């Protein structure tokens, strides 16, 4: 009978606090991750939206190529028209 009471005491005074402590630690850790993950998700979404303009790089590439071609044409003509430096 005494051993049963001792077991009850250990169960209530030792096992239960330990279980509560450990589970509470896991819960606090999980709750601590949530805001960080939310910030990551927000940043990733915003970064993805910021990169929507990357499609315009194709237009920039085309425009740069045309500009250089026009400059090359003018340069070729100027090379013929103008005298070289002495």
């Amino acid at each position, binding site marked *: 009978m005494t051993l049963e*009471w001792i077991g009850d005491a250990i169960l209530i005074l030792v096992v239960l606090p330990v279980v509560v402590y450990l589970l509470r630690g896991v819960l606090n850790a999980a709750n601590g991750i949530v805001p960080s993950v939310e910030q990551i998700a927000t940043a990733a979404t915003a970064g993805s939206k910021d990169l929507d303009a990357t499609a315009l790089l194709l237009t920039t590439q085309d425009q740069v190529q045309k500009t250089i071609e026009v400059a090359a044409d003018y340069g070729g003509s100027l*090379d013929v028209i103008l005298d070289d430096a002495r």
Partner: protein
Amino acid sequence: MPAAGIVMIVAVALIILAVVYYLMMTIVALIRIRDNLDKAITGVVGIIEKSAPVDDVVTSINTNLDAGVDLLEGLLVKKAGMEDAVGLVEGLYPGAAGEGFRNFPESKETTAPRIGEVYTKGTLTLARLGREAPIAAASPNGPALRNPTYGSLAARSLYPEIRQTRPNSMPRSPIIGTDSPVQYEPSDSPGVRKRMPVTVGAGPTSQPEETEGGVVKSGLAFLRRLKNDDR
């Protein structure tokens, strides 16, 4: 049932309740984490997909711009010369001459001349280019002075026709002055000379045939000579 057994059952029940409560709260937190991670993964995938062609596109743009820089630098140095090219860049962007041209390392050691020297040479170059330039104002209706072979020769077309044939020697310009070999006397009226010009030392070729009131009438004498010849 002994009291100790009841207490044990209650203790186990408390432990189970605690475990259930905290595990449920942990599950809820993990579910929120999973949802946010899904959003983050979606965003990251979007970033990866959208940034995938950036490397190729930017590389292509840089390649084209490099070619443009090579072209313009080479053309500027070829046509203006290193010193004038550096001076022109310095005139347009003060302080830029110190950095020099990318493809011409010697340009960093080149002293930039005053921009006025470059401007003068540039003005002359523009003058050779077209009728818009003041030097071409003499032939505003003619073709533009653009000679694809050698631009500066186009200015030759502004001169009289005989110069187009590139003669070895041109007639010398008349010498004027009191000691010139041919002396001209001022006339009283346009087209009428007091006497024909004579070379210095040759003496007069003819005397005035008649004077009326002290004024030589060469035109009248010419008509009379012509009349006598007819006889």
